[in-house]
C-alpha cells in the first residue's frame, strides 16, 4: 500500500492536542475528549509489502510509556494481521497525516483508541474491497483472518500482500463508517506484546536523542546564570575560543522577560554557548569560562523567603476563591470536632535520565531537527516564531526519549539547538549537563495548604476548607501551580470552600508526572486519614462514606464526562485494593503499618496500600505495595501497563525524598546526590491489579502515581503515630532506609 498523497483527507483540528499550556486541566470547561473524529487515513499509517510485512507508523514520541508499541497494536488489531508480521517505524512530525503527536497528560490511549482502531479497520475495509473487486463478489461476503481476505463461499483467499497495491488506489472509507471488531475477538489488544525497541535497547543501538550523529556535526553546551534570567555582562570569550576542540563561543542575549509569573515558554535564556568537536571538549572549556553575570531580580529569591511569605498569606484572608458551596463557616462552628492542619511540599526537578538537548541542522533556509520533545508540534511552532523560519521549512524527526515526565512538554532546548545551528552553519547537537538540567528545570511548584475540616457527632465530614498558597500574580498562576475546582472532596463534602493566594516567582515551573495530583493527593488523602483518626473511624470506611454522598451537580450544568470524578469507580478501586491487601485484618504492631489512599486524575482511578516498617531512627522500609487501577474496559498491553504502575509508584516514593531549594536565587541541588532517585534495594515488591469497567480505555502514564505518597504517609502514621505533613520526608524527621 503505497503512500498516496492525493488520498489524504483534510485534517480537522483535534481538541485533545493540548499543546502549549500543557495537560493539567484546571477548569471543568476543558476538553471532554475528542468529540469529532479526526480525518485520518490508513495510507498514512500502514504500508504492506508484497511479502506480507506490515509496516505501521508509530505516531507519538516514545518516552518509556510504551506508545510506540501500544498505538500500532490498536491499528494492527483492527487491520487484522498477525503481530509477528508487523514492523513499527517512528513517524516524523506531521500532524496533518497523524493527528496530534504529543505525549503527555496520559492522553495517548484515550485520544487514539477510537481513531487508530478505525484507521486499522479502514485499511482492512480497503483490502476487502480490493479482493471483492478482483473476485467479482460482494464485499459483504468476504471476511478477513490474520492478514488474509477470505471468500468462504467460493473458497478463495488472498494475502494482504497481494492486494495492497490495488487497495492503495481506492478511496478510503470515512472513519465513522468502518466496522470494528468485537473485543472478544481481540488477538493483539489485551495480550502482552514486548516493546518494539526492546531488542535494540538491550543490544545498545543508538536510539536516543543523545545518540544522533551527523556528518560534520559539532556539539554544544550552554553556560547559564545560576540565577534564573541573569544576563551576561562580560566573559573571557577570546580565551575560551582557543581551548582544545572549541570551534565557537557565542553569547546568547536571550529573550526572557522576568515578571511575577513565568510563562511555560518564557523565551530564550541568556548564556554563553560553547560549540566544540565533542561535548566533552565543550564541557572542559566551560571549566575555564569566567562570566561576569548581571544576576538580575531573581537573586532576591530564597526558599526561606517563600516559606515566610506562605506563613503570612496563610494567616491573611485568601486572595481568590476557586469554589465554594454551602456555608463552611456555619458548619465549622456547629461541628462536634474541628481539625486543622498545614501541609507543605517543595519544588521538584524532573531529572529525566537523558538530559535535555536536541540536534539541529540549518542549510539554505531549511531547518532539520532530531528531538526528544514530548510536544514536537508546539516545538516546531516555537522554533518557527523564535527564528523566523516558516514551519513548512522545518523537518522534525522524533528520537526515542530517555524519560519525559512532563519536562519535555517544554521546548526550550529545541529553540536553543535551532538557534545554534543557524549561527554556526554546521549541524549542532546540543546537550545539557545534569547540572544544567537540574538548575534550569521547569519545576513542579512548591505549595502550602491550610486545611480545616469539621466532623459531626457521628464522625461524619460536614465541612472542608482548603487554602492553597501558591505562585502567581493574583488569579494568574504559574504553570502547574493551580488547583481545580473539582479537587477531591469538592462536590462531595456537604459544605466546601477552596481558595488560593499567590506570591510572585521568577523561576520556571511546569508539569511533573501527574501535575497537581502528585502533591494534592498527598495533602488531601493524608488529611482524610487525619480526620478519620480524629473521628475514631477506619480511614477506608470514612472515605467510602464521603464517596457515597450525593454529588453536587457539575458546575457548568453540563453532562458528566470522563474527566469528571465518578465516585463509584473510586470506591471500586479502594474496596478492591483493601481486599487484596487484607486491610480489614491488618495488624496494629508498633513500627509496622498499612496506609491506604485513592485518587482520580487524568481520567484514571487508582487506589494503593503501602506496608511500611519504621525503625527507631525513623528510617522507613517499604515492605510492599498493592495497587489497583481502573482505566476502563481494556488494558491494551498488560505487561507494559504493569510497568506504568511500577513506574508511578516508584517515582512517587522518589518524590517523597527530594526537594529543590533556593538561596540568593540559586538552586542549591546540583546533581543526583542532592536530588536522589530511589535505588533498587529501596523499591518494594508491587502487586498490580486491574479493575476493568465498561468505559472507553484511558491512560496510565500518570494516575498510578498520586496515591502512593499519602498511602505511605498514612502507613507511617499507623506504624508510629507520627503524622507527616511536610515533604520531603527528611523535613518531617524521616528518611528512606
Amino acid at each position: 500500500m503505497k503512500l498516496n498523497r492525493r488520498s489524504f483527507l483534510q485534517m480537522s483540528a483535534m481538541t485533545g492536542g493540548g499543546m502549549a499550556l500543557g495537560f493539567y486541566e484546571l477548569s471543568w470547561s476543558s476538553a471532554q475528549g475528542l468529540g469529532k473524529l479526526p480525518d485520518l487515513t490508513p495510507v498514512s499509517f500502514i504500508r504492506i509489502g508484497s511479502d506480507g510485512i506490515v509496516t505501521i507508523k508509530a505516531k507519538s514520541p516514545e518516552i518509556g510509556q510504551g506508545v510506540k508499541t501500544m498505538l500500532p497494536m490498536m491499528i494492527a488489531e483492527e487491520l487484522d494481521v498477525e503481530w509477528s508480521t508487523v514492523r513499527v517505524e517512528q513517524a516524523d512530525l506531521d500532524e496533518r497525516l497523524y493527528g496530534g503527536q504529543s505525549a503527555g497528560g496520559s492522553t495517548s490511549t484515550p485520544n487514539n483508541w477510537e481513531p487508530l482502531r478505525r484507521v486499522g479497520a479502514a485499511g482492512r475495509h480497503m483490502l476487502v474491497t480490493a479482493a471483492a473487486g478482483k473476485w467479482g463478489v460482494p464485499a459483504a461476503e468476504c471476511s478477513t483472518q490474520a492478514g488474509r481476505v477470505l471468500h468462504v463461499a467460493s473458497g478463495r483467499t488472498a494475502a494482504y500482500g497481494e492486494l495492497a497495491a490495488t487497495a492503495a488506489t481506492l478511496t478510503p472509507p470515512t472513519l465513522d463508517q468502518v466496522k470494528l471488531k468485537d473485543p472478544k475477538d481481540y488477538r493483539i489488544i489485551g495480550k502482552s506484546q514486548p516493546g518494539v525497541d526492546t531488542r535494540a535497547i538491550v543490544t545498545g543501538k543508538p536510539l536516543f536523542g543523545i545518540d544522533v550523529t551527523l556528518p560534520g556535526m559539532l556539539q554544544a553546551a550552554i553556560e547559564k546564570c545560576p540565577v534564573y534570567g541573569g544576563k551576561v555582562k562580560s566573559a573571557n570569550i577570546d580565551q575560551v575560543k582557543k581551548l582544545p576542540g572549541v570551534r565557537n563561543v557565542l553569547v546568547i542575549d536571550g529573550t526572557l522577560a522576568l515578571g511575577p509569573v513565568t510563562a511555560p515558554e518564557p523565551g530564550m535564556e541568556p548564556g554563553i554557548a560553547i560549540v566544540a568537536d565533542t561535548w566533552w571538549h565543550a564541557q572542559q572549556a566551560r571549566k575555564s569560562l569566567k562570566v561576569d553575570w548581571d544576576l538580575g531580580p531573581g537573586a532576591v529569591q530564597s526558599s526561606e523567603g517563600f516559606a515566610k511569605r506562605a506563613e503570612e498569606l496563610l494567616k491573611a484572608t485568601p486572595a481568590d476563591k476557586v469554589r465554594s458551596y454551602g456555608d463552611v463557616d456555619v458548619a465549622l462552628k456547629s461541628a462536634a470536632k474541628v481539625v486543622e492542619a498545614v501541609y507543605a511540599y517543595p519544588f521538584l526537578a524532573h531529572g529525566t535520565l537523558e538530559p535535555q538537548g536536541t540536534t539541529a541542522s540549518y542549510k539554505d533556509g531549511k531547518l532539520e531537527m532530531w528531538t526528544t520533545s514530548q510536544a514536537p508540534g508546539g516545538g516546531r511552532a516555537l522554533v518557527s516564531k523564535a527564528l523566523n523560519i516558516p514551519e513548512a521549512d522545518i523537518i522534525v524527526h522524533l528520537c526515542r526519549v530517555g524519560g519525559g515526565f512532563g519536562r519535555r512538554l517544554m521546548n526550550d532546548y529545541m529553540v536553543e539547538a535551532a538557534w545554534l545551528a543557524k549561527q554556526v552553519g554546521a549541524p549542532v547537537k546540543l546537550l545539557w549537563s545534569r547540572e544544567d538540567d537540574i538548575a534550569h528545570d521547569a519545576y513542579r511548584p512548591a505549595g502550602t495548604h491550610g486545611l480545616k475540616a469539621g466532623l459531626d457527632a457521628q464522625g461524619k465530614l460536614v465541612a472542608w476548607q482548603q487554602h492553597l498558597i501558591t505562585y502567581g500574580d493574583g488569579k494568574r498562576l504559574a504553570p502547574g501551580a493551580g488547583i481545580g475546582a473539582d479537587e477531591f472532596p469538592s462536590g462531595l463534602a456537604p459544605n466546601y470552600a477552596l481558595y488560593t493566594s499567590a506570591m510572585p516567582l521568577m523561576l520556571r515551573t511546569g508539569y511533573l508526572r501527574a501535575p497537581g495530583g502528585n502533591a494534592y493527593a498527598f495533602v488531601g488523602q493524608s488529611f482524610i486519614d487525619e480526620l478519620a483518626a480524629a473521628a475514631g473511624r477506619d480511614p477506608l470506611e470514612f472515605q467510602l462514606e464521603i464517596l457515597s454522598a450525593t454529588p453536587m451537580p457539575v458546575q457548568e450544568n453540563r453532562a458528566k464526562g470522563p474527566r469528571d470524578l465518578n465516585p463509584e469507580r473510586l470506591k471500586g478501586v479502594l474496596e478492591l485494593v483493601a481486599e487484596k491487601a487484607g486491610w480489614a485484618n491488618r495488624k496494629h504492631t508498633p513500627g509496622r503499618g498499612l496506609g491506604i489512599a485513592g485518587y482520580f486524575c487524568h481520567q484514571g482511578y487508582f487506589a494503593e496500600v503501602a506496608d511500611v516498617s519504621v525503625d527507631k531512627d525513623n528510617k522507613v522500609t517499604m515492605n510492599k505495595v498493592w495497587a489497583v487501577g481502573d482505566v476502563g474496559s481494556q488494558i491494551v498491553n498488560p505487561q507494559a501497563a504493569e510497568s506504568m504502575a511500577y513506574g508511578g509508584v516508584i517515582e512517587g516514593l522518589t518524590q517523597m525524598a527530594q526537594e529543590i531549594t533556593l538561596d540568593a536565587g540559586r538552586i542549591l541541588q546540583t546533581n543526583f546526590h542532592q536530588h536522589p532517585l530511589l535505588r533498587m534495594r529501596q523499591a518494594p515488591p508491587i502487586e498490580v491489579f486491574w479493575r476493568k469497567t465498561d468505559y472507553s480505555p484511558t491512560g496510565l502514564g500518570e494516575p498510578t502515581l498520586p496515591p502512593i505518597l499519602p498511602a505511605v504517609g498514612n502507613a507511617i502514621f499507623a506504624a508510629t503515630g507520627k503524622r507527616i505533613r511536610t515533604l520531603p520526608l527528611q523535613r518531617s524527621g524521616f528518611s528512606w532506609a
Partner: protein
Amino acid sequence: MPLELTVNNVVTTVDVSLDMPLLWVLRDILNLKGAKYGCGMGICGACTVLVGGRAVRSCMTHIGTVVGQPVTTIEGLSVDGAHPLQVAWEALDVPQCGYCQSGQILSAAALLAHTPHPTDAEIDTAMNGNLCRCGTYPRIRQAIHHAAAAGT
C-alpha cells in the same frame, strides 16, 4: 596522544588526551553509543561498561587508565543479543524508556560472572549504583534471577 585500546575484542588506536573519559571516547570517537551520559559524576551508572570484567563508571574513568585492559560495552556483550541477561531482559520486557538499561545489564553481567546464583541481597548490592528513573527495578531483579536460572 595515540593510545591503543581493546574494545569488544577489537584493537584500535585513538588520538585523544589521557584524561578524556572513557565514556566520551566510546561515544564520540569510537561511535559506540550504548553507554550513556546521565550525571557525569559516577552516581547514576548509565555509563557503566566492563573493564577487565569489572563494572566501572566510564564517565569517571580516564582513557589513559584503560590502555592494556579489555573494555566491554553493551554492543560487545554478545553476538546479536544472545547473552542470557539480554535474553531475559527481552523475555520479561524490562525496559521502559531504556536509557539506563545498558548500564544495568553490564552491572548485572559483572555480578553473574562472579556470582552465578545471586540472592536478592547480592543483587541489591551489585546493582546499587545503577539508577533507573522509570522504575524498572522489579523487572531487572526478575530478569537477573531468570538469567541466573538459565545459566545453570
